[in-house]
């Protein structure tokens, strides 16, 4: 497997990275398989019966089938197999923690400790269709039904695509300027290069039957009541707009920001050289967002990047592969540590105080052992929250800050479905959001077309 060898993670102390170094640092971290390597890799698939990889995929892609199609050079057939189950199969091939999903359950792990590179094979197939723009789907006869989708992220767009295929008309309302949700604003840049998120959206839009209205937010420009009145059904895919706080004094000091906000700025930046990056960066959290902001900071040229996580490596939300990726990128991960104080100088963070933690009778406790860490940039990546203050959502039954849905993604309100990060689907993953959208769409279609 080829990797990007040009990454610069230890810049000279008083220099900033050159444009070339930045370009290398933010190039594709997993360059795609070539026509030669794809055949060899596809040949490694055992074409398992009732395959464990498929069972491990939240969207149940028939993985042995699509790999066999690649093997027999039916690449377009392979792409159809993937996209039938997961219209965002291209993005999922890039961002899925495959080591915990399909590749984690590959029988080759037992045989030789090296799974088939399912993610890269999936990318090969979907990219081949994406690059030609060949439309593999067509819409069924018009049902005359209209559905409102709130949020143009993976759940919303997957739902819209499925609904449109079934013959319904879909209007997608999106708060931001661009569709894509976290695919566009939230994922580390080197995981999805060349504006891939927008290309995937365009592929979905090329099916027809879908209209996206940007700059429209629920609670500000729209109410759930009106949507229910104007449309035959509503699918909420609003994500998690709120960010958890540290609940510490000085939390609003200069140099402190939400990781998701900075990642969004980074993803939308035309020139990474214009982005400011701290010398001593500290990230609080243990999930994928923490890893993404830490590694991207390092690759932007930060001298020292530390992640502060209150528990051990096994409890991290980020996968082992992600954690090791951060560590090999020069990120220092402090386990069993929590931030207990923010010290400021001229209203800017200058230092943090860290307390070691331990488990005592199953409960996480501070040990009282403290040390300080010089800090000029502090990122909060301690999780996002459903903004349930929003009018509309607060009428729905929620549990632990997520919208409650049934197996078909129906909410407590008649005619309203929900999916993606705003419900509790057991994952915080693109692939799970796509599955929500797909399941909800099928149920909506059946329900309104009787």
């Amino acid at each position, binding site marked *: 497997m080829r990797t990007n060898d040009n990454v610069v993670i230890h810049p000279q102390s008083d220099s900033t990275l050159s444009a070339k170094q930045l370009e290398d640092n933010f190039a594709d971290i997993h360059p795609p398989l070539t026509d030669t390597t794809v*055949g*060899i890799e*596809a*040949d490694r698939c*055992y*074409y*398992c*019966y*009732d*395959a*464990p990889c498929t069972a491990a995929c939240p969207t149940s892609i028939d993985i042995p089938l699509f790999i066999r199609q690649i*093997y027999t050079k039916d690449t377009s057939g392979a792409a159809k197999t993937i996209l039938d189950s997961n219209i965002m199969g291209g993005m999922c091939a890039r961002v899925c923690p495959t080591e915990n999903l399909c590749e984690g359950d590959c*029988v*080759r792990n*037992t*045989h030789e400790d090296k799974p088939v590179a399912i993610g890269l094979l999936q990318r090969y197939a979907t990219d081949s269709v994406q690059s030609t723009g060949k439309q593999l789907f067509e819409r069924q006869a018009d049902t005359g039904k209209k559905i409102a989708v709130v949020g143009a992220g993976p759940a919303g767009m997957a739902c819209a695509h499925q609904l449109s295929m079934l013959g319904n008309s879909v209007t997608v309302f999106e708060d931001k300027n661009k569709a894509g949700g976290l695919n566009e604003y939230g994922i580390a840049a080197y995981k999805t290069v060349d504006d891939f998120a927008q290309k995937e959206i365009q592929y979905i839009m090329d099916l027809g039957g879908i209209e996206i209205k940007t700059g429209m937010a629920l609670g500000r420009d729209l109410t759930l009541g009106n949507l229910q009145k104007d449309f035959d059904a509503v699918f909420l895919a609003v994500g998690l707009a709120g960010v958890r706080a540290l609940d510490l004094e000085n939390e609003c000091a200069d140099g402190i920001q939400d990781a998701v906000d900075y990642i969004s700025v980074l993803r939308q930046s035309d020139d990474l050289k214009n982005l400011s990056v701290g010398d001593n960066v500290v990230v609080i959290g243990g999930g994928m967002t923490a890893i993404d902001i830490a590694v991207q900071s390092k690759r932007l040229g930060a001298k020292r990047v530390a992640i502060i996580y209150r528990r051990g490596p096994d409890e991290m939300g980020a996968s082992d592969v992600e954690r090791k990726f951060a560590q090999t990128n020069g990120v220092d991960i402090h386990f069993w540590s929590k931030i207990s104080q923010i010290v400021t100088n001229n209203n800017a963070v200058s230092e943090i105080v860290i307390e070691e933690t331990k488990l005592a009778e199953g409960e996480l406790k501070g040990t009282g052992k403290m040390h300080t860490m010089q800090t000029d940039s502090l990122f909060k990546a301690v999780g996002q929250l459903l903004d349930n203050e929003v009018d509309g959502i607060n009428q729905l039954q929620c549990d632990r800050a997520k919208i409650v849905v049934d197996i078909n993604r129906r909410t407590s309100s008649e005619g309203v479905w929900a999916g993606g990060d705003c419900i509790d689907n057991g994952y915080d993953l693109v692939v799970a959001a796509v599955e929500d959208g797909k399941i909800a769409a099928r149920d909506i279609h059946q329900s309104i077309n009787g």
Partner: protein
Amino acid sequence: MADLTTNFLGIQSPNPFWLASAPPTDKAYNVERAFEAGWGGVVWKTLGVNPPVVNVNGPRYSSKLSNERRVIGFNNIELISDRSFETNIREIEQVKKNWPDRVIIGSAMFPMEEKYWLELIPEMEKAGVDGFELNFGCPHGMSERGMGSAVGQVPEYVRLCTEFCKKATSLPVIVKLTPNVTNVVPIAEAALEGKADAVSLINTINSIMGVDLDTFNMYPNTGGMGSHGGYCGEAVKPIALNMVAEIARNKKTSGLPISGIGGISSWKDAVEFITLGSTTVQVCTAAMVYGFRIVDELKSGLSGFLDEKGIASVNDLVGRAVPSVTDWKNLNLNHIDKAVIDQDACIKCGRCHIACEDTSHQAITKEKDGVRFFEVIEEECVGCNLCVSVCPVENCITMVAQTEGVDLRTGKPIVNTHSDWTTHPNNPAKVS
């Protein structure tokens, strides 16, 4: 260190590995390189009458590749030597002088008229060949002109041409057989009747490698039009082994020396050919794919094998497996094998289950207590070996002979006596 020297028809060879009559033995340059690399002998590329044949100026070869682009099968439409008879004779003479301890067999393909054989065979003998191989196998081009496999497919022609050659020389004569026949045994018998000293087999199998799906032209082709070629390489080995064994176990031809050919690419393949009755083996495709250096692996592997088995020489290995080949009617119907899956080795791919479930005897489970679990159901297993054949893990599934108790499938006691079709009650022609 085992003795690799072989005596085939009185011809001494430092090892049993010869290069077959084919492009690798086309001229002095190649053969010199082969001998430097360590090959025991060569069958020089087939000589014909003047004027020499001409070859196409397009693809002569094509291959069946694995996805990793490893050559599995190989096909060619090259004709016999396209150089003059005299040029070849001159080169044979020189190379033989340079390498007196190596074998050079002269391969010949002349029209079916005695005069050619009486004139040309002595010329080759004078050049110093150790013996002759009569090319009655080439299946393309030459066969259209009444030679090669056109001769090899008709027992009477084989006998006749062999006689022509035997009349012209006192050196050993090997008849090379074509596999493009329904039964190779009568052809071998005809060669024997013509006083052949040995047979060599197999030559290549008629083949078309594929079709270009954009142009709908078969390939390989010469500017759009193609002609069938001869197929060889690893893929043909099982066919060749069977033909060798058929000749070795046939009453009339048993004892007729054999030079085995057909997809030999490792020392193991060579051992298989030798144990089924060959004294020497001939290699072409493996050399064309990897170069002459493969002879190092062939020699070292064979020598190591003989040492490990405590067998003194290659000659002691010849024909060791022939007694194990018989007609189906003689197979012991009382013998019972059952598949056994080693659960520690099983990777749970489920291929044994689906193969058995869909296409065989529904004798392998897919789960136990709600989890993937593949186990043989002895009550259903007929011992067919399909699961062993499809399992990706070596030795994970094995066939175990049942020697006592009851066969759970039939409910009948397992007996250790022999009983076969010849006496079976269902056989209308049974021996009473």
